[in-house]
């Protein structure tokens, strides 16, 4: 529901990095979205398509990558990728894949990260 403000945060990170590197154009933006972030990737993409207008990011490929949920199970001490039941996309349930307990500590999978950008710049 807060895709717009997230998209603004993403755009700020992209533009600041592009400017710091004297980019004339951004060709690719790679964004990682944790499966537990309360964001709909398609909506993030749509918001970005609005925000990039008339910027050097305008023609960039926006590449969204899912980040798996990593857990530590309090019940059986399993550590690793958790099972995400995304029958309801906006509110995934996390289970330990080994003992099916909900009693898990989420170590990774909630974040949104701008991973990298590809740029073009003028020859000196």
């Amino acid at each position, binding site marked *: 529901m807060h895709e717009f403000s*997230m998209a603004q*945060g993403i755009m700020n990170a992209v533009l600041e*990095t592009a400017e710091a590197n004297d980019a004339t154009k951004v*060709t690719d933006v790679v964004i990682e979205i944790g499966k537990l972030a309360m964001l709909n990737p398609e909506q993030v993409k749509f918001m970005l398509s609005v925000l990039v207008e008339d910027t050097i990011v305008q023609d960039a490929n926006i590449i969204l990558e899912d980040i798996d949920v990593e857990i530590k199970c309090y019940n059986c001490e399993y550590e690793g990728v958790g099972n995400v039941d995304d029958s309801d996309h906006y509110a995934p349930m996390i289970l330990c894949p080994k003992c099916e307990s909900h009693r898990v500590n989420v170590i990774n999978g909630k974040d949104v990260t*701008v*991973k*990298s*950008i590809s740029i073009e710049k003028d*020859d000196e």
Partner: protein
Amino acid sequence: MHKVGDIIVARNIMKANKKLANKNQEKFDKANVFCVDFVGAIGSGKTSLIEEIIDNVDDKIGVIAGDVISKFDAGRIESHNVPVVGLNTGKECHLDAHLVGHGLKDMPLDNIDYLFIENVGNLICPVDFDLGSHMRIVVVSVTEGDDTVEKHPLIFQGADLVIINKVDLAEAVGASTEKMVADAKSLNPDVQIITSSLKQGKGLDEVIAAIEEFRSNSNN
């Protein structure tokens, strides 16, 4: 002609909020204030609960009341003669640590024992935004439907106390309080769950005791 290059950005958009949340918590700890964040849907009873607690404890309480555009809740709480800061999020569906940080400028932390933060009515977005509180209470009412808990697993998994409110109306709206308790237990096996009818005063003492106990266990 142009050169092409790949640049690692590695900028975590969520971490910015987490950092500010930690900053807020440092401020609370320094002033020896225990901060509780109240989350729940619109009409679940968050404001009433806060009002009831204020009227029934001797501790000094300050309140940050978040709302999308109105200041009604802040006004209601103000009438109980406690320091209140109303925060309007404008277009946003949740409070974030940055906004709370702004609100703290007008909150006399040195003169209070507890800071209550009433989040915007929403069971989805606040999951992503830590505010720096020591304890998160999720309030859900039976009138929202008894499938509300299982439909919003993440907010209940992150709760330190779950309050199932308006249980006196369960029969009238055809909701099963037992199902909601069982769902909350299945999602968050260790969490304390209190069933309440705050309008009748039922459950209030348990809530107050639960907050005090949580505070003494976390040494804040």
